[in-house]
């Protein structure tokens, strides 16, 4: 199974009610699970050749999980608050406003619409405007302006309204 096929499965999952799928094929087991925010796990390269002996050990199976191999599990994960969070889709720097002297995109207590920009994450001079996936109230801003954030780290807590 190659990455293209895995991507196809992920795309299939995206448009469906199925939240989790496990496939075993030619000695490679793949487990794909939608994130709580509806996010889908990032596709990760599965090693092309896996020794059958290693396959017998569950810990060594190339399983795609929320924290893919090579990406350290974010420290913030353990302290993840209950409820809906907006998580960072990449490692980078968190900006609460479009410019250092501009008003923040959102602050605690604000109601955000679906698709509204809540912050910018920058990495390598690439700017990613993060949008809320749901309509809701910003109950907590989890990070400071200019702070480094990890992949998957919670940025905001949003309470659906």
């Amino acid at each position: 199974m190659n990455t293209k096929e895995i991507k196809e499965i992920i795309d299939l999952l995206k448009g469906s009610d199925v939240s989790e799928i496990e496939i075993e094929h030619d000695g490679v087991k793949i487990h794909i699970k939608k994130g709580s925010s509806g996010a889908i796990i990032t596709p990760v390269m599965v090693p092309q050749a896996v020794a059958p002996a290693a396959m017998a050990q569950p810990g060594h199976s190339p399983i795609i999980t929320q924290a893919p191999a090579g990406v350290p599990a974010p420290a913030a994960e353990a302290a993840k608050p209950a409820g809906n969070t907006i998580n960072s889709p990449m490692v980078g720097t968190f900006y609460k406003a479009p410019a250092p002297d501009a008003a923040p995109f959102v602050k605690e207590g604000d109601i955000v619409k679906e698709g509204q920009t809540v912050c910018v994450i920058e990495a390598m001079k690439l700017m990613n405007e993060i949008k809320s996936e749901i309509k809701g109230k910003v109950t907590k801003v989890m990070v400071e302006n200019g702070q480094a954030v990890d992949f998957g780290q919670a940025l905001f807590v949003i309470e659906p309204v």
Partner: protein
Amino acid sequence: MNKRKVPGTAEKILIFLRAEKSGYVSGEALSRKLLVTRTAVWKHVHALVKQGYSIGSSTRLGYRLTGSPDRLLAAEIREGLLTKYLGKELYCYDEIGSTNETAMKLAGTNTEEGAVVIAEKQNSGKGRLNRKWLSPAGAGLWFSVILRPRIAPRQATDLTFVAGLALVQALHNFTGLEAGLKWPNDIFLDGKKVCGILTEINAGPDLVRHMALGIGINVNMSKAAFPAEIKDSATSLSLAAGREISRLGLLKEVLGQLEEKYELYKRDGFSSFIAEWKKRSVTLNKRVRIKGLAEEYEGFAVDINKDGGLVVRLDSGELKKVYSGDVT
């Protein structure tokens, strides 16, 4: 403003005139080929002359092209462009706020991958953190390329390095200048910045929808064109090369290199680009100062990791991974 997806009548007239460099093309022949009246042909020719083309006309023989302007017009960019899709869809402006802003808006519509937004002049050219990017008329290349890669947001940063390396290669091929890369993708000549790349993406949690690679190249700017606050840190290709550089020619080379490297990235992945970047780096193995919004520190730039993050050894010995900030 001239904004065109496919060659219009005026551009088709140019194509016919170019094919007939030796002689004249009659108004009648043009009207037949283009299925418009001879008056319409005359009007289009008149408009081309206003854009800067030199077109001779003779009542008996017709029209003849004798000169083209070094202007960023769709017809000029497409002429001799050897790409498959990059720059085939063109949005050319005399003046614009920011090409990236317009590109991000256009990318939300049904524009094709590889569409290019370009302007002679940007009135609010952008850098990081809404800093200004100087973009005077006629002296540089200020453009944005719309891409739709099927990758996760955290992989999108790979393309900022791919673009930087494509630019370095294009400069080498077209001008012979050997530029260096300051982390992550500033292009440097003689210790001064000559091009910058600012990338914006629109992405869901898992997948990039579209991105705009915003590229600014100081091509034919004189020393006096740079204001006091950047005159010691910025330069242009003409200053470095000691001669004028054709903007149109360079643009086509850049678009060609971008398409080639982007295809290579999609086929073979990112690792070869990391190796190439290290060869071209002017940041590694030097003492660097990193200035972010929240913190500022110094250290020794030892490496870039597989994601392109800069690895800095602090004086305490601690290794710190840098993903953003001003590096000096």
